[in-house]
């Protein structure tokens, strides 16, 4: 079986391996340059952008010289999806397309053993390739993470466990769609579409709700928040700010219209805005998830996508077992 699986899927495995390898080498080269900007390692500069002059300079150069790579990489959360869908789509669809399922399942290997071997090997390849891709990408992003934290979309979706879960999700959808549609290419498309459709609501709606966010509330300082150098603010750069704004003295949140009215009033009165706000007891609030929730959130989101994949694979196994294919 091992030889057969390799022979049948070596094209996909080689193409994906080559892609991941090329991305990996490019990222290693670029990443080495980016890492060299931080003599003591990027982690030492975490949160020091506005404090430590050397770190600030490093971050400035990082942004100027490598910022475009970071922007480019934001779209790479789709790479695991491509890996998973590319391996899953032909698993059953190609056999059904060419009629070779009738050949494969009338040899002495029972169909359930055939299916189990294929699913295990190809899912394993998807996990391995995605894991390698994620490892290089995570390393590459270390300087950026030291600057921006790991909760931004271009970090959270590309690092840790989540990419592997995306790959397995795409693998499951593509395999199931291939079993039903009996065509590889539409199955690939379905997997891609399903991921995009699932990812939007998950990232925008579900992810902030994995845990109850924390809230800070403090009076507007007289000097204004921009002059706060040296003071480690809460929430910090690495936390995931979900919402922020102003509230009145009782803690009632002000709408932005109300805030602009206050701003206009301050301008008309000719006073400093911060002093004006401070005098009226206006407070700043922030709703956020602390940075140390990163792995909890990764686990929750990974479990979510892997659960869907498991259900779909279960459906495929059930259909093959019942000889409905």
């Amino acid at each position, binding site marked *: 079986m091992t030889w*057969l699986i390799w022979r049948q899927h070596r094209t996909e495995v080689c193409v994906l391996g080559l892609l991941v390898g090329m991305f990996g080498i490019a990222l290693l080269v670029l990443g080495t340059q980016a890492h060299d900007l931080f003599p003591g390692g990027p982690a030492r500069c975490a949160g020091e952008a506005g404090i430590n002059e050397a770190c600030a300079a490093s971050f400035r150069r990082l942004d100027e010289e490598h910022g475009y790579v970071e922007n480019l990489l934001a779209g790479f959360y789709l790479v695991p999806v491509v890996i998973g869908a590319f391996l899953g789509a032909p698993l059953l669809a190609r056999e059904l397309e060419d009629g*070779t399922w009738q*050949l494969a399942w009338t040899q*002495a290997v029972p169909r359930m053993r055939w299916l189990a071997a294929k699913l295990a090997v190809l899912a394993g390849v998807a996990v391995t390739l995605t894991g390698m891709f994620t490892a290089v990408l995570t390393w590459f992003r270390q300087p950026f993470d030291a600057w921006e934290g790991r909760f931004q979309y271009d970090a959270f979706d590309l690092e840790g466990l989540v990419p592997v879960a995306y790959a397995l999700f795409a693998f499951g959808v593509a395999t199931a769609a291939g079993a039903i549609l009996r065509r590889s290419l539409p199955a690939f498309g379905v997997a891609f579409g399903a991921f995009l459709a699932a990812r939007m609501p998950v990232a925008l709606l579900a992810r902030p709700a994995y845990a109850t966010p924390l809230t800070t509330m403090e009076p507007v300082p007289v000097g204004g928040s921009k002059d706060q150098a040296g003071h480690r603010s809460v929430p910090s750069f690495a936390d995931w700010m979900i919402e922020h704004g102003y509230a009145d003295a009782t803690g009632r949140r002000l709408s932005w219209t109300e805030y602009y009215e206050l701003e206009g009033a301050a301008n008309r009165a000719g006073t400093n805005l911060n002093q004006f706000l401070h005098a009226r007891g206006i407070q700043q609030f922030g709703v956020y998830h602390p940075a140390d929730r990163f792995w909890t959130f990764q686990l929750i989101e990974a479990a979510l996508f892997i659960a869907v994949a498991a259900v779909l694979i279960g459906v495929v196994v059930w259909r093959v077992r019942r000889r409905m294919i």
Partner: protein
Amino acid sequence: MTATEFALRTDGVGKRYRRGWALRDCTLALPAGGVIALVGPNGAGKTTLLRLVVGLLAPSTGTVEVLGHDVTASTPQTLSRVGFLAQDHPLYKRFTVAEMLRFGRACNLRFDQGLAERRLAKLGIPLDRKVGTLSGGQQAQVALALALAKRPHLLVLDEPVASLDPLARHEFLQVLMGAVAEGGVTVLFSSHVVHELERVCDHLVVLNHGRVTLTGDIDTLLAEHRLLVGPRTATDLDRAGAVVEAVHSDRHTTLLVRDGAIPAAPGWQAQPVALEDLVLAYLRRPSEPSAAVTSGVAA
């Protein structure tokens, strides 16, 4: 006969797809050894029946027993006793012929590599060619060599020659019959072409509208059926229920009767019937349940 002397036994087998029944009330007992032809028009349920026999499908009703074993079990042992050649002889088109053989070796308990290589060498099919670049006839031969190398007890072929040109068709049947002559294998194959069957087959199953309408040993069937030709008459001649078909021309009435014992009435001439005419007569009959005529096995 004991159970294992039957290559195939089905009992009340039916298969329903979402669009309806493809096969109903199929009860068969086909003897081991020899060649069995499954005949019927397109859409009669031949492919469904054959897929049930090799375990690719599960029956909606009834049981299928191949060489004395329930096929739904699908153990490596039961699978290795049956060879299957699906319609249009699917193969992995990007594999070389040698890789196809390696596939057979990797996926079977026993695989006679030497036998397959000898067969292909005899046919002049090079092992290093990609399967997709071979002609249709050569692909069919590769698929056949693959199925025969399993040394199956039952070889099932779905329309094996339908897509082949006359020359390739002849070559294919020659190889197939050669394998049968070497012994040990029962062949069950489907066809919508009746002609040429007489030469190669021992047993016949006629399938129409998802039901078995005729089954039996070919020699026995031919001996049992006669054509009676006489003056045109409109009266109901089917006193004994033995008339399969009555055809009236301007002056004559031709009856196909099943019971060979009925003596021809005065003025009527008895003639033997050709296999093709016999099959066509049964295919033209309106489909009615439990009208299957069984012969041969019971005799």
